[in-house]
């Protein structure tokens, strides 16, 4: 059985009348890439800040590596690496000096530190830029420097708070691959984001947050199984008589249909060969159709069904 790295129990955090975290509980096992998904204001950053003891909380408890986390738990902090959305480096120091500074806050031994810095530089692929000042780096390279500063001391728990915001696709892929490599090397990772595709791509387990509460938790497949929708079939069709639409709606496992702008959407819940059965109805009525495609549910669908709102809509 894997060890529990992070254990949050019944956490309550209030800002005046606003409840930022409402009896929030979480358990993260060693080696997991744990995704914390939710729109802005859902409580992700508050959770991270409480986890790092940067914020006090009103109720509950936090344990990391089996020990209670307090502001003076420096032995625990030593094992944590943090990578934030904003690039937190000194403009006046070179790439190497920046990594050295942040690594030096954890590792005193000069030789050991040098080895760690070299490995971090190699890991993020900044070998050719060590003498560059941050202002001379592109956005993607800056993000990589930000990551190097957070992981150089080889933490066992790495917290990444939306590290790919405003990053080009190439750098984003590199960052995501890097996170997976860190996990393969034994680190436990907490990844917060509102980009569902990223979370789906790399996270082994996901918690969805909304209004300070955990609304769902599990692997991506477990989460998708939690919702009614298992398949959405879309067929381009110029004309669809009402009786045909009624026939399709009456098919087994079809729980909803929608026809608008020449597109028929059929929402299915479970069952097999749903597409074949729908196409069979159309052929029997001798109705011609264009493109046909099916979509499996996304985390956004999970979020939509659980909270009644799309994840992206909430960003605005």
């Amino acid at each position, binding site marked *: 059985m894997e060890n529990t790295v992070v254990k949050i129990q019944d956490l309550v955090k209030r800002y005046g009348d606003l409840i930022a975290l409402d009896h929030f509980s979480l358990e993260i096992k060693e080696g997991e890439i744990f995704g914390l998904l939710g729109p802005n204001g859902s409580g992700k950053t508050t959770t991270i800040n409480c986890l790092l003891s*940067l914020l*006090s909380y009103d109720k509950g408890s936090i344990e990391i590596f089996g020990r209670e986390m307090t502001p003076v738990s420096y032995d625990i902090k030593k094992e944590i690496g943090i990578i934030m959305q904003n690039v937190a480096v000194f403009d006046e120091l070179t790439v190497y000096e920046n990594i050295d500074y942040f690594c030096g806050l954890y590792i005193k031994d000069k030789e050991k530190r040098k080895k760690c810095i070299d490995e971090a530089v190699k890991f993020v692929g900044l070998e050719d830029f060590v003498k560059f000042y941050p202002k001379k780096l592109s956005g993607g390279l800056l993000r990589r420097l930000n990551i190097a500063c957070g992981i150089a001391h080889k933490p066992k728990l790495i917290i990444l708070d939306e590290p790919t915001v405003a990053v080009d696709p190439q750098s984003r892929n590199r960052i995501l691959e890097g996170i997976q490599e860190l996990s393969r090397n034994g680190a436990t990772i907490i990844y917060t984001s509102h980009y569902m595709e990223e979370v789906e791509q790399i996270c082994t387990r996901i918690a969805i947050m909304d209004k300070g509460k955990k609304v769902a938790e599990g692997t991506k497949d477990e989460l998708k199984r939690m919702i009614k929708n298992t398949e959405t079939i879309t067929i381009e069709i110029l004309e669809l008589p009402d009786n045909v639409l009624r026939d399709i709606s009456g098919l087994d496992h079809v729980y909803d249909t929608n026809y608008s702008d020449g597109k028929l959407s059929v929402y299915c819940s479970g069952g097999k060969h749903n597409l074949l059965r729908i196409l069979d109805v159309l052929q029997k009525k001798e109705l011609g159709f264009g493109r046909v495609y099916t979509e499996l549910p996304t985390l956004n669908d999970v979020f939509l069904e659980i909270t009644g709102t799309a994840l992206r809509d909430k960003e605005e």
Partner: protein
Amino acid sequence: MQVFKAMFKITKKRLPSALAYIIVFIVISVIASSNASKDSKFEMTKLKICIFDEDDTSESRELSELIAQNHDIVEIENDRDVIIDSLYYKRADYALVINEGYAEKLRAGDTADIFASYCLDESFSTVYMGQFLDEYTNSVKAYLSMGMPIDEALSCTEEALSQETDVSMLRNDKGGDAHYSVDFAAYFQYMPYILISAVFIIVCQVLVTMNRRDIRFRTNCSCISSSKYTFQLFLGSGFFVLAVWLLFMAVGVMLNKEMYTGRAWYAVFNSLIFSAVVAAIAVFVSSFEPADNILNLITQVLGLGLSFLCGVFIPREILSDKVLSVARFLPAYWYINANEMIADVIPFSSEGVIQCYLIQLGFAAALILLTLLVRKVRYSGAAISTNVRKTAVSH
């Protein structure tokens, strides 16, 4: 010592611009202190005057000679444009025309229209010369009315106006100690403003960089404690302030043309202690992460405010009691107090100077404590209200 080293590296990057400031400040303070000795002497002001004697009588010549005794006579062509040009280009301060009929009118006791003059505006020289001519003619008229003949009236007037009053400067006793000259006292007098400005411009900006929200967040997540971090910030600031202070002391040696001796050491220690106060103020102010423009404003307000309230720029004798009672709560007041004791402006006592040192050190200690408190509240990890249990700190 990661924080200290990073501070040092950042300061090094900013040093060229910082040095420019320091050099400017040193030049200003050297100029200010070299002007100080001039303030302690009194001498009559001599004007450059050109006289056009259109009357050409013994009376008018006598007036011209009297003017020549107290002022410098310049020769200028009697042409309106030339005269105006001379006044404009400061070749002459005042152009006096003794009108024809001057002697005749003076004898009759009529002083209307006996002179004409050229001047650009109501400057000091115009007023000064106008007063002299009024005094002269009134005096002659007074003697004439007493029944004196004109020759005697003129000589009596000349004698009366030639009398000089002894003027002694109130602050001429400043620098009574053999090892602490007037110039040197002035050098230390202006140091609070210079130290505040120089240190704030450099140290505060470096500290604000170190305290930037994102950097601070990352640092707070690390295993360095808030007090250790703050201690290193103090150390870095102190190191820089010490370097600036040493530079000022080295300039002081050059200015004094000899090594510090005797009472001058009191002033040296006084400035060292005040430097520590300035470093403490700088770290305290930067804890609030002011923006660049706010920081400049704070620098000006603190630099000028402390200097004006505590008697750096204005002698404390002319400051009101209310101002001085407020100034007592400011460290620069005690710096100036010690400085004035050392310079014998107020009676010197080594106990009094040491008391001023201790009060300044008290200010520094209070500011350090306030900074630790502010940092604890603003930056350090949260004080978790429930289940507070301090675990052993290990690094």
